[in-house]
């Protein structure tokens, strides 16, 4: 089994990046239309190019370790089936 990839560091912190100019090497900017402000330059993507590797790359369920955490997640994340604490089509906040 392939080893779990080490968590990637973000390429840069947003705050620092904003302070740098568009010519700063390693940092990408894109021009976009902003409503009422014309063309503005904003920070582009900050991820590293590449392909995630290893069977564990996309795994997220392992983040929940204890039984309590798992039950709590179910009651929250899967609340439509495992909790009364939700509003939606079958439990309206303001009854129709």
């Amino acid at each position: 089994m392939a080893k779990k990839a080490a968590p990637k560091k973000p390429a840069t912190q947003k705050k620092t990046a904003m302070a740098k100019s568009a010519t700063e090497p390693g940092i990408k900017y894109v021009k976009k239309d902003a409503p009422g402000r014309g063309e503005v330059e904003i920070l582009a993507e900050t991820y590293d190019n590449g392909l995630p590797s290893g069977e564990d790359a996309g795994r997220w369920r392992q983040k929940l370790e204890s039984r309590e955490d798992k039950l709590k997640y179910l009651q929250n994340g899967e609340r439509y089936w495992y909790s009364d604490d939700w509003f939606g089509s079958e439990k309206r906040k303001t009854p129709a």
Partner: protein
Amino acid sequence: MAEDEKKNKSIDKATQELYEKACADEISTSYSRADSLKPCPIGSVGSCCKNCGMGPCRIPLPKGKEETPEEKKKRRGICGATAETIAARNFIRMIAGGAAAHSDHGRGVAELFVAVAKGEAPGYKIRDEQKLLALALEWGIDIGDRSNEEIALEIGEMSLAEFGKQEGEILFAKRAPLKRQEIWREQGVMPRGIDREIVEIMHRTHIGVDQEYQNLLTQGVRASIADGWGGSMIATELQDILFGTPSPVLSEVNLGILKEDEVNIIIHGHEPLLSEMIVAASRDPEMIDLAKSKGAKGINLGGICCTANEILMRHGVPLAGTFLQQELALVTGAVDAMVVDVQCIMESLPDIAQCYHTQVITTSPKAKIKGAMHIEFNEHDAVNGAKAVVKAAIEAFPNRGKNVRIPQDTHNLIAGFSHETINYLLGGLFRASYRPLNENIINGRIRGVAGVVGCNNARWEHNQAHIAMVKELIKNDVLVIQTGCSAMASAMAGLMVPEAASKYAGKGLAEVCETVGIPPVLHMGSCVDNSRILIAATAMVKDGGLGDDISDLPAAGAAPEWMSEKAISIGQYFVASGVYTVFGVTWPTQGSKEVTEYLFKDMEEKYGGMWDFEPDPIQAAHKMIAHIDEKRKALGIDKARERVLYDMEMRRELEG
């Protein structure tokens, strides 16, 4: 060989290349057999009955003209069965076949599950405690300080009891939207037990029993719900607990995944019980050393059909190909062993294998093939069974001849989009939710959702309809979710990577995909995993804003290259769950206008979903989009909302 002839067979280059090789090697394949064996025009429209020894009775519609009432009266079998009865009986027997296949798969998983809980299945363990707990909460099983195995034993026994239950309602039906459950009760189609509904189809379709086509079709609906919300859902849920709930995983697809210098093992069929162990055995250092001792650099696994989708979703094992590529995989001359379990396995495989060096290995006592080696799967000794299979492949490797051609084509794909993962990706760990999806449907960035699933059919250009349909849907901002061979087809066309969003999707869908970091076409798994689509649709309903029932959602389903009875069962449970579902290639009730009309129109009044038939994939996509637009209109979300940014002054006004 003329370019046109190859292209008529498949849109996929690797398939074309190997079809040409098969012809040069004088190998008979499903492609060549489809050329020489035309479908029976009477049987293919459901007008042939062979349910008793007085028949077969063939009662075709008159050719090229409208049937007169007198002609219609005469169109009966010896027992007096009308064209309607015969077409409806044939149709629901297909549902019975499909529901039985999925459900028997589910039963097999439940049996293994009980064995694991009892500690009688070495090598297996409970991998997803969270999903185990979810089922315990759902079925009212005490959790407390009990061990996972104790909880699992109760869940396994309750699952097994679902098959033989005689009365009441199947347990997973309670997951459906409340309104949907009411519809099923009102229409008398709430399944009592899984096996019971299938057996009842076989009884009702026996000579001289149920002879009212509406009543026959109603039982078809009931059995199909027992499949989708019963047997298939049990298979998916228990497999997730045993083998892990799928999360995003990167892999590759197409016959180019075979390796010239490694032992190639293809796993083919539908049940992942043994293949899970084969994955482990292929990574065992002892096996790798053995492979090296025979001159190979390692062991390479690949999959075909839904066993492939199962091990892709959980381990990232590459996909070698779809149903119609199984024979061609052997034609590469590079497959050392093809290990098969159940469903969609061509009997021609051992004959083709003889022309090369491939060892075809059957593993299920339910599915033996003359000419194949049989190594029976036994859950109590699966580790050694898996090792025996891998060893047989390694032993075959030195016999590989010179007549080897591995096509270069492969594509990357991201798979692993289970309902749980979609929920997590959209909302995060602290408030997982379908809200962002619903909101983007409401604001019109995403027009709707389409499930495109099903098989390949040798009567249709391989993968053409899948790809044409899926591209048309995403171009029109419809998010596509897929399973089965249909999902593999999209992966082969490069539609299952995030980059596909900017290349193929409409602006709104592309924006959402880029923000969430998902492809515009999501791989949800194998054909039993169509149950995941049912749950995703239910989550969308429950989250709110898109109506009270699955039939309110701007959603549609399709199987553009269907061929199996399982596809008919799947289609019927989608219709019964409220989804407009369009099939391509051929339609099996065309011999009776009334039956076809009932399926295409009357079912909508009863279930909110209905069947349709449209062989042209672009036209079919347009019909799906038109249906999605109708639903948007009914929900009042058909007009793009003006997005107004409120400044402080406007806010004050609003509050005042």
